[in-house]
């Protein structure tokens, strides 16, 4: 999943431009003093219909997090995967898993959650025919290459690695050893689906039915989605409020203004430009907690100018030319922390976060930066263009700041310029079409709290989010070894060895770890953000 702000931003730029009055969303009903026990929260329209395996952006993910519960759930505080619907997940070889589903769980329409609910959902998500964005999550399961071949049409409809044993038991066979597999099962793509999803697909999309603590009452695209507490929810994490109104905002500044004006209860994306004022505006009603998000600069390795031995020195030099501390202080008011590795502090040191792994290559050192870039043959093309999507304000701020930092280090006003792309969608398209000629913004929000998720999807040869097409045999070999490790500690240290390969090549420049930030109204208490920077809605109390 990519970083937090795009889906919303993409919509906004166009709307702001066409009708300057349109940004600001629903307004009107609800608001700060709405229905008793119901809170209102800022939101953006999801990119796709809310099929769990087709939602890989944050706004849709927020809703899935409320209306679905999977086999595992990530602890809102620690991020550790704990059993939710899974009674037990057994394996002896890290390749064959037997999963038992707890008894007594139902969907909000009354249908029982069974082993078949999971197997059918996973088969649906993996199938090439259904064209689901998160299909690659099922890529470890045996038979994926038949169901979702890289080219041509599929030769099977179901994953051969999935077998229903009885009502509450199914087995999973992976195509390689992957000791972390059970911990990935908290991701929304692995959610169970009721039969109505398959029998009345259009009806389900109009009003999705899940097994989480909330159910969707109504949704008006571009305005708001109303979620109500599901009283019959069997889980222990029942909603502490009567419901949540998610209001669509196309601009985080407007949402923040509405919060201050008392028209909104919760804003989970405080705009960078307002960070200086949150203390005086909100006092203690402001949260700033680490989230599993890292921002990096990726490079186009399909461009020979960046794929040679000298370019490695240039990349390291660029990394040293960026004054991370000053930028996180000044632009982000300490809601970002300068990065010193390629993972995230939310993993914890046991989980693979290693402060300082980057070493001196991530320290600001303009003199050394200048030397390295000169030794490496100078900037390819004489000028560095950092490509980013301009539809969210904060990206432009930090890209300009990074460029100024590089310019100052190199003593050249025009060494680096930002290259804005109008919308996030266009930005992603250009990346997909390999049109980048220099570094580009790459944000990564973890899907599940494993070091594997910060490395393999981004740097493994031809991995799903390896946008720069970086490829390194040593890295691939170390990742394969790490995945095969059954001992968690050994797996983590093997991943860290792989991370060192990323460092030695400076495959991507780590910039900073991103915090989740949120502000809320006086009506709310017990507000927290989970490690995915999503509010823990079910625990919020409304007075």
């Amino acid at each position: 999943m990519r970083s937090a702000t795009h889906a919303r931003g993409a919509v906004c730029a166009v709307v702001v431009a066409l009708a300057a009055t349109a940004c600001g969303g629903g307004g009107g009903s609800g608001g700060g003093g709405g229905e008793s026990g119901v809170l209102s929260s800022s939101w953006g329209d999801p990119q796709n219909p809310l099929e769990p395996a087709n939602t890989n952006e944050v706004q849709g993910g927020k809703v899935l997090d409320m209306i679905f519960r999977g086999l595992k759930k990530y602890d809102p505080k620690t991020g550790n995967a704990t059993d939710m619907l899974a009674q037990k997940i057994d394996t002896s070889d890290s390749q064959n898993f037997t999963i038992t589903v707890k008894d007594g769980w139902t969907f909000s329409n009354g249908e029982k959650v069974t082993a078949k609910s999971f197997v059918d959902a996973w088969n649906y998500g993996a199938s090439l025919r259904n064209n689901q964005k998160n299909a690659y999550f099922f890529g470890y399961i045996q038979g994926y290459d038949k169901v979702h071949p890289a080219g041509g049409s599929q030769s099977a409809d179901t994953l051969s690695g999935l077998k229903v044993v009885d009502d509450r038991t199914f087995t999973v066979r992976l195509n390689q050893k992957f000791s972390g597999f059970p911990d990935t099962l908290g991701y929304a793509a692995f959610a169970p689906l009721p039969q109505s999803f398959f029998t009345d697909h259009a009806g389900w999309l109009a009003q999705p039915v899940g097994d989480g603590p909330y159910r969707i009452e109504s949704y008006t695209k571009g305005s708001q989605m109303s979620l109500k507490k599901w009283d019959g929810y069997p889980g222990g994490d029942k909603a502490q409020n009567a419901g949540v109104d998610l209001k669509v905002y196309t601009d985080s500044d407007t949402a923040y203004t509405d919060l201050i004006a008392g028209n909104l209860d919760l804003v989970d994306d405080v705009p960078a430009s307002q960070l200086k004022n949150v203390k005086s505006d909100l006092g203690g009603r402001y949260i700033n907690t680490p989230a599993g998000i890292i921002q990096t600069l990726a490079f186009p390795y399909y461009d020979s100018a960046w794929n040679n031995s000298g370019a490695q020195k240039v990349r390291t030099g660029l990394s040293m030319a960026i004054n991370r501390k000053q930028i996180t202080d000044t632009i982000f008011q300490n809601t970002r922390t300068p990065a010193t590795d390629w993972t995230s502090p939310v993993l914890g040191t046991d989980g693979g976060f290693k402060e300082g792994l980057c070493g001196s290559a991530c320290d600001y050192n303009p003199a050394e930066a200048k030397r390295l870039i000169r030794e490496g043959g100078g900037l390819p093309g004489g000028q560095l263009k950092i490509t980013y999507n301009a539809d969210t304000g904060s990206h432009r701020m930090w890209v300009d700041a990074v460029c100024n930092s590089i310019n100052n280090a190199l003593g050249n006003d025009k060494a680096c310029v930002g290259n804005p792309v109008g919308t996030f969608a266009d930005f992603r398209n250009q990346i997909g079409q390999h049109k980048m000629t220099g570094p580009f913004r790459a944000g990564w929000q973890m899907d599940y709290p494993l070091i594997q998720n910060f490395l393999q999807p981004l740097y493994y040869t031809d991995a799903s989010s390896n946008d720069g097409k970086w490829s390194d045999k040593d890295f691939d070999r170390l990742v394969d070894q790490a995945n095969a490790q059954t001992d968690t500690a050994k797996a983590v240290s093997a991943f860290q060895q792989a991370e060192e390969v990323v460092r030695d090549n400076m495959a991507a420049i780590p910039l900073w770890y991103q915090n989740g930030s949120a502000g809320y109204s006086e009506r709310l208490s017990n507000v927290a953000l989970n490690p995915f920077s999503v509010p823990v809605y079910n625990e919020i109390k409304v007075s």
Partner: protein
Amino acid sequence: MPEQPFDQDRAIAGTGMGGAMDLAATEAETLERTPGGPLGTGPGARPRSLWSDAWRDLRRNPVFVVSALVILFLVVISLWPSLIASGSPLACDLAKAQEGSQPGAPFGYDGQGCNVYTRTVYGARTSVTVGVCATLGVALLGSVLGGLAGFFGGFWDSVLSRITDVFFAIPVVLGGLVLLSVVTSNTVWPVIGFMVLLGWPQISRIARGSVITARQNDYVQAARALGASNSRVLLRHIAPNAVAPVIVVATIALGTYIALEATLSYLGVGLKPPSVSWGIDISAASPYIRNAPHALLWPSGALALTVLAFIMLGDAVRDALDPKLR
């Protein structure tokens, strides 16, 4: 801008000014010089033309004098910004971000630690370049097409009128977002080209109207009757009499083109960094309005002053060239 005809007498006098009379004046031209008109020339006095009248009026108009001085100043700093601002507009030091007025930076620093004064001074060049070039392009294209259509009439006139209708129907900002978002160039030329593309129909209509009016005048009929060619009639007799309204509208439009450039740059489809433009700076500074309003106010003020100066100049020119409206 009304498309009404000019006084016949002034129009006659205008011919004399519009181009140097060649010595072998045709009889038609002699006809035009019928003495005894209200503005008739006394012996020895210089002929009073529309233009000399206008110039006399303008010099006495304080609005014109003030706006002309502002514009002169803008043109000078566009050509030589280093006269009044030292340093580079691209030199930014994040350590100084959002700081207020201080020696060396009378307007303070913006969110990136760039010197707002330097950037505001350098931004004038973009605005003046875009305004002047877009106006010249629009005026040339619009008056040539409109003039030809008005003069020849008939089929091509109808075609052109429909084309102008089509262009009038395109909303400027929407058109800018669609057309300019595909442009990757980082110079002022795509922006100018876009303004010419969408701006010419306005001038074209006015030019067409005033050419049609001028065409019906007796001296034109006379020149025709004496066998003057189309091009001679157009250039010698019609153009000089039809050009005044075009000049008036174009001068006023100049200010709006400057504002449009800032609008497009603000929306991110006009000029892009590292170009220096007031629109870019306003866009970058607007999120910081609570903490660093100076970074927003100075470029906005410069933009407002410039647009105002050009529009007031246009007003003054209109008053001088079209006394009926006074």
